[in-house]
């Protein structure tokens, strides 16, 4: 339970705002950090902490692409396919990426390592195609570069698993 485990952090979050309801974004991040994603139970937990209806927590989690209401792979690849990026070939890039990882749009690889997803503008339009992996930016991509990165991530995951 977040309330017990992070009592101090939660108190600090609430102290920043005039009312509890305003702390909901911070708490959703905290919850996602803790559980990896936001399940309905987690949303209820956060809503109760912030004194709002669970539906409102659900709504916020749904609006922001940085919150995930589904379990994710270890590496969460969010590719911007918004118009400016699309003009620089992001669409094509995304499709090739899916094909390379053998997943559908929004899917997770069978080994549970990678989740791919399209998102709206990430404010790096001039460096498209781009994506963010676990909230870190990778820009000016093509298939060669991304294949290299994927190998790196795989190796990293294997190493971590071995430890």
């Amino acid at each position, binding site marked *: 339970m977040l309330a017990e485990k992070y009592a101090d952090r939660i108190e600090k979050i609430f102290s920043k705002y005039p009312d509890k309801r305003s702390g909901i974004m911070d708490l959703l991040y905290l919850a996602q950090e803790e559980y990896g994603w936001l399940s*309905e139970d987690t*949303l*209820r937990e956060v809503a109760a902490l912030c004194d*709002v*209806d*669970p*539906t*409102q927590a*659900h*709504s916020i989690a*749904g*609006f922001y692409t940085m919150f995930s209401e589904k379990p994710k792979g270890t590496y969460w690849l969010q590719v911007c396919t918004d118009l400016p990026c699309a003009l620089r070939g992001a669409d094509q890039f995304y499709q090739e990426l899916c094909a390379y990882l053998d997943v559908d749009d929004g899917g997770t690889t069978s080994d549970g390592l990678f989740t791919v997803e399209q998102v*709206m503008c990430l404010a790096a339009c001039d460096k498209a195609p781009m994506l963010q992996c676990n909230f870190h930016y990778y820009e000016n991509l093509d298939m060669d570069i991304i294949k290299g990165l994927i190998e790196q991530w795989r190796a990293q995951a294997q190493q971590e698993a071995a430890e």
Partner: protein
Amino acid sequence: MAETVTITIDGQQFQVPKGINLVDAAKMSGTDIPVFCYHPKMDPVGMCRMCLVELGSVVTNRETGEPDVDDNGDPVVRWFPKLQTACTQTVSEGMVVRGATQRVRDARDDILEFILTSHPLDCPICDKGGECPLQNLTMAYGPGESRFVFDDKIRLDKHVPLGDLIYLDRERCIQCARCTRFCDEVVGDDVLAFHERGRRLQIVTISDPPFDTKFSGNTTDICPVGALTTADFRFGARPWELDEVPSICPHCPVGCNISASTRLDRDFGGKKVIKRIMPRQNEHVNEIWICDKGRFGHHHARAEERLTTPLLRRGDEWVAVDWDTAYSEIAGRLKKAGDNVAFLAGNNLSNEDLWELRKLAHRTSNTPRLGVWPAFMTGADAVAQAGVGTGTRLQDMGPDSAILVIASDFEEEAPVWWLQVKQAADRGAKVVVANGRPTKLDRYATEVVHYEYGDAVAVLNSFAARARSKNKIDADFTARVDGAAELEAELKGTRVPFADAAETLLDAEDLVIFAGGEGLTLDQHRELMQAAANLLLLTGHAGKPNNGLVPVWPGANLQGAFDLGFSAETTAALADQPPTVWFIGSADPAAEDAALVQSLANAEFVVVSTQFMTPTAAHANVILPAQSFAEREGTFTNGMRRVQRFYTAQGPVGDTLPEWRIYANIGARLGGDKPRISAALVMRDITQNVPRYAAMAYPALAAVEKQFPDVGGDDLYYGGTAYTNTGGLGIQWPANAEDESARLQVRPVQLDGYQIEGLFAVPVRVLYDRSTLFEQSEMMHTHVPEPFAEINNQDAAHIGIVDGEVIRLNVNGAQHLLTARVNGQAPAGVVLVPQLLSKTPIVIGPAACAIEKIGE
């Protein structure tokens, strides 16, 4: 009229109230600006972009503060470079609007085309088809053909239950956020919200219980498409087949104006039947809202269990007889019984019924006993003196106003008033909620007063004492009030335990008091009402709009019953001196009062007019099948003393008759006049005999005037499908305080509380119950809890019971098995017992009780 500004719309100048929304201003001036997301009863959000206009303002010279003028002397207009959403504009002096230009048309065409890109072609099977804002605006705007590729259409769930009353069709939703804003802003239960964004935006709820506000049905009226439909009407009929009949909700003292949508129906033998209930606009009463009890509580009108012929008891059998036989039997008995008859009037008899019942009673005796049911509230004289001023509109109450709600679980007892008071609080009105326990209105209260049950009168009396000590007595007003000086003297030295609450009320310019009857004995209730009148009359908060007393009577027409000479005191006296003959008009005391059950069982003869075989009817010797509000005309007088007409909406059931006619027919056999041929003529008799009702002739009650906002009509996109009022706004009778020449009276009140050792039971009212009429709406059964008793945590721990456990309640010498609710709401020492969750009487007034754990 308030301050105005001049605006120009498409070259024409209009004077409109300053500071109002541009869409409303245009509407008032006869120009329609198409909208989807804007709604005149909610804050604008500018989400749909349908309301685009060209907008300009006058250029003001910074030095002179005067408008710049061009060579012709006309003010220079600065146009916004882009089109603006009219719904997010507030009118200002000199504002210039163009809505009829090609540029605006093109933009609106584009928006409409855009909204339609993924909209399903459901019109032929959509409930909204025929009264759909999107349909109507598609006819007016947009290209005939879509350029979007059909394969790109987004497919979404079409039958999503948002709770068990409202269904969502996600494909039809155009994302206007009216429903979410209604829940959040208007009702304060934010259980609906958007999920995702862009083209994937969807309405969702994960609340528990899901969409379960008492006002959920209203979202289906304001939804500009057929995305939200009710479980009641879904696929039930097409709007154009329906004949709208103005009516009045028969369930509570608010007296919401409703429209019964009727049609000839195969399932009802080809007769006219109600297919749904819709709100009908009355800005003085319910505005454009109704609660779910009113919307879904109409099924009794055509229930299979309706009694269809007079019934005579022969031993243990009921024998169906014709009216003549029934009348003769009753007339014979009444003649013999003379003074030994008591008459009991239910709380949803029409004024016409009550009048004829009273006339009948006067045929049997010169001093007939005329009681009401239920009989736990009284104080009609306090209302007559200090009742809210005519013209009161809760929606006009704001920062200068205060509202006290005392001894009532307001949302349960008068939902739409609750909604309006909640909104008044949102606008800045000071709301004080006083009761023996927390209720939902506490959330919106400026001050909450939790007194000990039994102290309600003392608390209200202390507010008057505070008025005295803080010099808030209105001397000009009290010059008209007899007994004021004596009362003031008496108030001297009274302790004021809730001084902040008192001052919150006393500092306001306008003051309305809603008084319920929770936790009070009948004697205390009379004093509570007097204490309210005392406070209002001493401080001059009476005799003008938005000031005065409103009783939260149980039922739709207790006010009418009091006005026509029935009383709760009489009912109370009947317990001590039971009559040998009972004549009961659509009341079911046997479901609520164990003592009366006994009295009915002992009686020699019992006559009951009723729509259903109630526990009371089971004691009858003769049962007279009565008509529901749907099958006949009549009037109800609401808790604000507004007399309102309802009209015949459906065909008769069996041999049923309106009760006024039944009573008049019996009266005729006792030597009375021939019955009137219509309810209108009965009302004419009333107008000639009851001075307060002199102005209530049917044609006058049917008068309507233009109301703002202008809903219904051709432009449903503006206000939704609340119906235009064509049946009459009704007339309020003025309280004595409104007549400047009238003398008014106050008197010191009795402060006797009650002392009960140990636990005591307090009956409370819940909206969704098993009362005779509402019980017939099966779709609402899941909302009616099993009979329960609410107990304080400590008391529960002490007895050793937990939430949800079945317990035995001993009260008034009887035992009842009830489910315990232990949720921290009941005060210590109190057991809250909701009324009418079953047909077995438990307790009707505060009483000592004991709780036993059963089983080990």
